[in-house]
């Protein structure tokens, strides 16, 4: 059963990976992606606040995960996404994919991140000395989707 969680608190990657792998001897490949809060080039980021659409978020993530599990041979998937106020270097998101083979684990993980970035209802607001401003969506994220068509 895939794990999908949206939470304010930090997560323990090792514990989540252990939950997916414990007691199994058929897993050949584990891929994890961790997204972190990056400081601005001028090192002026005070905090980053993640807003979301609570009624929709887990539903949207679940749908992305299910599509990935149909498309690749996966044993399991975990997606953890944080919301609320975060600091530079804080973890934002974790995606774990387990499979018999590395290609499935890699591709499914990248697919999930590409869709999460463009389809899941999260918004980032950066706070600096100069105040707060909403992060703009990047065209490169839309382009990343096209190769999965």
């Amino acid at each position: 059963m895939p794990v999908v969680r949206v939470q304010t608190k930090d997560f323990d990657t090792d514990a989540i990976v252990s939950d997916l792998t414990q007691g199994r001897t058929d897993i050949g490949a584990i891929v994890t992606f961790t997204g972190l809060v990056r400081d601005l080039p001028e090192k002026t980021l005070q905090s980053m606040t993640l807003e979301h659409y609570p009624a929709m978020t887990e539903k949207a993530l679940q749908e992305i995960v299910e599509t990935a599990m149909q498309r690749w041979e996966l044993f399991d998937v975990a997606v953890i996404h944080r919301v609320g106020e975060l600091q530079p270097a804080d973890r934002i998101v974790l995606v774990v994919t387990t499979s018999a083979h590395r290609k499935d684990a890699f591709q499914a993980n990248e697919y999930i991140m590409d869709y999460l970035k463009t389809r899941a209802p999260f918004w980032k607001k950066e706070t600096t000395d100069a105040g707060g401003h909403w992060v703009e969506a990047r065209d490169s994220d839309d382009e990343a989707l096209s190769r999965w068509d």
Partner: protein
Amino acid sequence: MINVLYFASLKEALGTSAEEIEADNNITDVGALREWICARGEPWQSSLGQQQRLMASVNQQLARPDTQISDGDEVAFFPPVTGG
């Protein structure tokens, strides 16, 4: 009634996160709802006008302008997402 939600920069620009709009025969899909909201003038015209790149959902599913809506639906408008 249609329960309309706004998020992120759109919510801030409008100064509200939700409103209820009477479902009537002219509001059959997401595009029509958006036009109806804009037609009320500012601040909606600037924030929800066609020049704004927005996403929409109906009952927590991503939607397109031609996605049908009916009485009791929850419709959300929001800027392109930036999570992850």
